[in-house]
């Protein structure tokens, strides 16, 4: 239950930071920032979804984590790590071909890693983790 609360608190903090960022006028409204904000919201949505799943398990008196959920997380993490290496290679490749600043590229890379993990998690959930 503690981990579920931590997930909701972190999600709320991220949303609050985005709102404050927007209120303070740091969002110029260009397409690049919109993609970053949108991606952040998708990742927060994913965290909230996981939190809701954990709450539902708690309500059904199931364990919040079991061997399948741990294995899905492990398989998704390892796959995401592997793909992220190529993502960073791509970021390095485009770094001198774009006008983006270094901190924007690093931010995009980190958000990209989170999106890759999200996609891997969905993929592993759909395909399963059958080890033949």
């Amino acid at each position, binding site marked *: 239950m503690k981990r579920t609360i931590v997930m909701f608190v972190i999600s709320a903090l991220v949303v609050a930071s985005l709102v404050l960022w927007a209120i303070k006028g740091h969002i110029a409204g260009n397409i690049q920032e919109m993609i970053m904000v949108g991606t952040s919201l998708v990742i927060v949505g994913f965290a909230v979804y996981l939190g809701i799943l954990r709450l539902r398990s708690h309500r059904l008196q*199931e364990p919040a984590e*079991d061997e399948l*959920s741990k294995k899905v997380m492990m398989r998704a993490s390892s796959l995401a790590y592997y793909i992220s290496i190529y993502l960073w290679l791509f970021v390095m490749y485009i770094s001198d071909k774009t006008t983006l600043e270094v901190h924007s590229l690093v931010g995009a890379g980190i958000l990209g890693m989170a999106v890759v993990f999200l996609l891997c998690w969905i993929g592993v959930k759909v395909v399963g*983790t*059958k*080890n*033949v």
Partner: protein
Amino acid sequence: MSNRIKELRAKEDLSQLELARLVGVRRETIVFLEKGKYNPSLRLAHDIAKHFRLPIEEVFLFDDEAAPKPSE
């Protein structure tokens, strides 16, 4: 590897959630097992077989052709 969990569960008129609670996993794990999308740990296979009062090999069925052959 296939299994007879769905069939055995139906015989005992047991829901996925009830079986999940009995063996200490989430309902989703039973769903994945029944769909053949997950191979359980030895511990979980043992617990499920024990619940149905059957040996593991009667609950979890190995395809002989797919099973790895012992090294010579």
